[in-house]
C-alpha cells in the first residue's frame, strides 16, 4: 500500500542508550506489544487466517454441512467455469463494475470541484451530498429504489415523456442492472469527500503561476489539478472497484431476493449466497469465493502496476 506511510522509525540512538537495561526493556516492549495486540491476533487467527485455510480446503471438496467434506479435487472449479449461471454472474458483475465505478467517480470529482470553491453554504451541500453514502446500503433504500424504478413510477413516466416505454426498469431484464448502477452512483458522497480533501492540498501558487502564464481553466485542470490529485484518484478507483465487485445487499433487495428477472442482477455474491446458503453447496461457494479473491487481487495488482504511469507522487510537496 503506497498510501500507508512506513512506520516512522524512532531514532536509533534511543535503543543503544543503555545496552544492559535495553535488552530487558526490549523484551518488556515485546510482551507489552503482543498483549495489546492480543485481540487482533486472536481475531486474525480465528476469524481470518483459519477461515481462509478452511475455505481453501472446502473449495476442493463437496460439502453440504451435514456430511463431512469429501475431496473432489478441481471438480468445483470445472463445474463452475462451465456453469452458465456462473458465467452470467461474472458478466453481470463486470458490467456493473465497469459502468458504475467510472460514472460514480466522475460525478464525485465533478461535485468535489464544485464544492472546492469557497462559497457560502458549501458545508451544508457537502453534508447533503454525503448522506446517500450512509443510507444507500440499507434495505429501506432498496425498497425506495424498487418503488422509484417500477412500472408506471416516476422514472418510467419521465421516460414516456421522451417516447421511451420499457415498462419500468425493475421488471425489465435489459434495464434492471442500470437501476443498481444508479443506486451505486447515487452514493457518490464518500469518494467526493476524499476528492475534496485531495483538492484542498493542491498548492494555490501553482494555479496563480499558471494563470500568469495564460493557462485557461481547462488547461489548469488538466495540467495541475489532475496530476496533483492523482494519488487520491488512484485510491478512489481502487476502493470503489473492489467494493463494486462485492455488491450484494442492493442487488438482493432491489430485485426482490431473486437477483432477477432472468438472472439480470445475478451479481457474483448473489450467486455465491444462493449456492452456499440456499443450496448448501459449501464447496462450490468456496471455490467461487476464491475465484473472487483472485480476481480482486488481479485488479488490485493491475491498478498498482498502472499507477507508475499515471499517479504522480510529489515527494517535495511539503
Amino acid at each position, binding site marked *: 500500500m503506497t498510501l500507508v506511510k512506513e512506520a516512522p522509525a524512532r531514532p536509533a540512538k534511543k535503543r543503544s542508550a543503555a545496552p544492559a537495561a535495553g535488552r530487558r526493556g526490549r523484551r518488556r516492549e515485546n510482551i507489552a506489544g503482543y498483549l495489546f495486540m492480543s485481540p487482533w491476533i486472536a481475531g486474525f487467527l480465528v476469524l481470518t487466517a483459519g477461515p481462509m485455510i478452511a475455505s481453501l480446503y472446502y473449495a476442493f471438496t463437496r460439502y453440504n454441512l451435514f456430511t463431512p467434506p469429501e475431496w473432489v479435487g478441481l471438480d468445483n472449479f470445472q463445474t463452475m467455469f462451465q456453469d452458465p449461471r456462473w458465467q452470467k454472474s461474472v458478466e453481470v458483475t463486470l458490467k456493473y463494475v465497469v459502468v458504475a465505478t467510472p460514472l460514480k467517480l466522475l460525478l464525485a470529482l465533478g461535485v468535489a470541484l464544485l464544492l472546492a470553491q469557497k462559497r457560502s453554504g458549501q458545508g451544508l451541500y457537502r453534508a447533503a451530498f*454525503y448522506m446517500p453514502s450512509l443510507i444507500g446500503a440499507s*434495505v429501506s433504500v432498496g425498497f425506495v429504489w424498487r418503488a422509484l424504478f417500477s412500472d408506471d413510477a416516476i422514472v418510467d413516466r419521465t421516460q414516456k415523456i421522451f417516447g421511451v416505454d420499457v415498462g419500468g426498469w425493475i421488471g425489465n431484464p435489459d434495464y434492471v442492472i442500470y437501476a443498481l448502477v444508479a443506486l451505486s452512483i447515487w452514493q457518490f458522497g464518500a469518494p467526493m469527500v476524499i476528492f475534496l480533501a485531495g483538492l484542498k492540498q493542491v498548492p494555490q501558487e501553482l494555479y496563480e503561476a499558471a494563470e500568469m502564464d495564460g493557462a485557461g481553466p481547462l488547461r489548469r485542470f488538466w495540467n495541475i489539478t489532475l496530476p496533483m490529485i492523482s494519488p487520491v484518484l488512484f485510491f478512489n478507483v481502487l476502493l470503489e472497484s473492489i467494493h463494486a465487485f462485492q455488491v450484494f445487499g442492493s442487488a438482493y433487495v432491489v430485485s426482490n431476493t431473486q437477483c432477477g428477472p432472468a438472472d439480470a442482477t445475478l451479481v457474483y455474491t448473489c450467486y455465491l449466497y444462493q449456492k452456499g446458503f440456499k443450496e448448501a453447496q459449501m464447496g462450490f461457494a468456496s471455490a467461487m469465493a476464491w475465484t473472487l479473491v483472485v480476481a480482486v487481487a488481479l485488479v488490485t495488482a493491475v491498478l498498482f502496476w498502472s499507477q507508475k504511469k499515471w499517479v504522480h507522487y510529489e515527494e517535495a510537496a511539503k
Partner: protein
Amino acid sequence: MTSATSSPVVHTASERRRFGSIAWHVGSLAVLAVVLYPVIWVLGASFKPSKDIIASIDLLPTKPVWENFSGLADGISGISIGTFFTNSLLYAGLAVAGVVLSSSLTAYAFAKIRFAGRNLLFTLMIGTLLLPYHVLLIPQYVMFRKLELTDTLVPLVAGKFLATEAFFVFLMVQFMRGLPKELDEAAKLDGCGHFRTYWSIVLPLTRPALITSAIFTFINAWNDFMGPLIYLNTPDKYTVSLGLMMFRDQEGISNYGSMIAMSLVALVPVIAFFMAFQRYLIDGMATSGLK
C-alpha cells in the same frame, strides 16, 4: 471567463464574481435536487394512501394520511416493531463497544510500542482490508454453526471485539502517530506503564478518531443486511433490516404504505446520527483516505 469587455476593470470583476456565485448555487442546487429526490419522495410517500404510492406522480401527498404509521403499531406477524429496533440497537451498541475497545488497543500497539514483528503484522492487517469478505463467510458460518452460536448476536459482533475491522485500526493508528511524542515519553519518565499511558493519555487524545469509528460502526451495523440474513433465523431475533424484509413478504404490494413508513422509520436513527455528527464523519472519512 477571460472575455474582455469595455467596461471598467473593477466593475467587470465584481460582476463576474456575482455571476460566478449565482452559477455555483444553481449548479449545486441542481445536483442537490437529484440527490435528495429519493429521500423527499419516501418522506412524501409515507403520508400517501397505499394505492397512490406508485401510481401518483406527485412528490408530496395531496391529502396526507396517517394510516401508514398507525398501521406499524400492529407489528408484523405478532412481533412488534420495537423488538426489531431493540435487536438492532443491541447489535449496533455491542459493535460500537467492541470496535472502540479492541481497535484502540491494537492501534496503540502499532503506533506506540516498538516490538519485534510490528511491521510485518501491520502489513498483514492492511492486507486484510483488501480481502473480499466472502472468502471468510462460509468457513465462519460453518464454525459458528458447529459452536451452536447461530441465531445469536455472537457471530455478528465477535469480529468487532477482535479488531478485525482493519479500517478502524488503521484510522486510529494514523491518528495516534500524529500525537506529539513528548507526551508519552513524559508519561514514561513519570513511571507510567503502557496501560496507564494508553488509558489516561493516548485514549482521551484519540477521541476524534474514536468517535468517527463509533459512528461508522453504528451505521454499518444498523444497515447490515447480509450478516443478519445469514446468521439470524428466528423472527423475534431479527434486526430492522430483516424486519423490513418480513414486511415485504407479509404485506406485499397491497400494503405499500406501511412498508414505506417502516422504511422511513428504519432510516431515522441513521439520519439522526448523521445530522448530529456529520462534521466528524466527513472529516474522518477524508483523513482516513489520505495521510
